[in-house]
Every structure is written in structure tokens, then in C-alpha cells.
């Protein structure tokens, strides 16, 4: 068990086997490779993707099935191969959430989803091949 002091959350502990490796980093954060996921509320659809190498870097994430009906993960076979997905049962898919000044403006980045191999903890941020998915998909309207 390890502890990380996260400025926006305080001390959060994680286990070695929770460490997720993004070999090529996230878009715009290419140097940071090691993350873990934590949640503060079991009931909430939101979780947090936390950089281990830079405690200031936290992303709000969610599994898109929670707020989009008929969500489709359309990505290249190469991306799946790069995190060694052979069995789709091991694939977890998240999207990054952006909250700006107002909660009403909450959006999900459907164009750059995250895929994780839960067996090997390898992960990658990929580009969706579905061209009607944008980086700013409003999730509030869909929910109400």
C-alpha cells in the first residue's frame, strides 16, 4: 500500500496492482505514464484518474455506458493490440470529463477515449473512429 498526497483530495492510498501504465502517456501529458484510478463515492458515475508521477494531474473519468445509451467504442485493432487485448472481457473503457466554470457545462471527451486491459493494467488513450463523437459531448441533457 502506498500513499499519494493529491492537492485536490488529500492523501489517497493505492496498491501496486492498481498502477496502470500508459506507455505513450495521455494526449498533452505524454511524459506521465503511471496512473491509478480511485473513487470517492461508490454511487457516483465519476471516478478519478490520478498521475502517480505528478500529483497535480487528476482527471475526472466515467464509463460512458453510464450516461450514453448505445455508446459505441469504435477504435482501431492496432490500439487494442498495443495493450494486448485478446479477450474483450478484459477491456475497460473510460472517457475523460471536463467541468468548466458551471456544472451545467459538463462534457465528456468521446473523441479520445481511454482503454485499459484490466488483466495487464496496460492502457492507452486512443482516437475514436466514429466521426460524430466530439471532444465536448454534453452529458447533462442526456441525463435529465
Amino acid at each position, binding site marked *: 500500500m502506498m500513499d499519494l498526497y493529491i492537492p485536490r483530495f488529500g492523501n489517497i492510498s493505492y496498491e501496486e496492482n492498481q498502477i496502470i501504465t500508459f506507455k505513450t502517456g495521455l494526449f498533452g501529458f505524454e511524459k506521465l505514464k503511471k496512473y491509478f484510478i480511485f473513487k470517492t463515492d461508490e454511487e457516483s458515475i465519476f471516478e478519478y484518474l490520478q498521475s502517480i508521477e505528478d500529483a497535480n494531474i487528476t482527471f475526472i473519468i466515467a464509463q460512458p455506458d453510464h*450516461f450514453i445509451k448505445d455508446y459505441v467504442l469504435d477504435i482501431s485493432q492496432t490500439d487494442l493490440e498495443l495493450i494486448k487485448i485478446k479477450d474483450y472481457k478484459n477491456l475497460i473503457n473510460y472517457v475523460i470529463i471536463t*467541468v468548466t466554470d458551471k456544472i451545467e457545462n459538463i462534457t465528456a471527451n468521446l473523441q479520445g477515449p481511454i482503454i485499459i486491459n484490466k488483466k495487464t493494467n496496460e492502457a492507452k488513450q486512443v482516437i475514436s473512429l466514429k466521426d460524430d463523437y466530439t*471532444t465536448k459531448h454534453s452529458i447533462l441533457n442526456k441525463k435529465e
Partner: protein
Amino acid sequence: MLVLARKKNQSIIISNNIELFIIDINNDQVKIGIKAPKEIPVHRKEIYEEIQNEMKNAAKFDPAQLDDLSKFKKNK
């Protein structure tokens, strides 16, 4: 920046393992084929930049908004 003039069907090799082919040229549009090892990401720059920008926005959330987020509950 290195600038090379190429004609249709010619190519450029980068670092032994990446090859760019000029497939077609039509007025102000060029079709480029890219042969590269699969671990080398290749993206259209504008999509790449858009996702990068959105990631920078996403990382900036204010902890005061986390309470609002707790309103979003799982349906199951």
C-alpha cells in the same frame, strides 16, 4: 525544417522504418500513405491538437465542483 519536393508515387523514408507515399495530388489536396510500425501513432494534427487541448481543460477542474458531481448517480 527539411523540405523535399516529391512527385506522385514517390516516397520518403524516415529512420529506416517509416515511409510516406505521395498517393495522389489534386489541386490543393495531397493524399499521403503512411507505412509505419504499429506502435508509432499517426494522427491528423487538428484532431490530435483538439484532444490535447481538451485534456488540458479537463485537468483544470475546481475541487469546489466535486459536490455537484456527486449528483450524477449510477442508474443500476
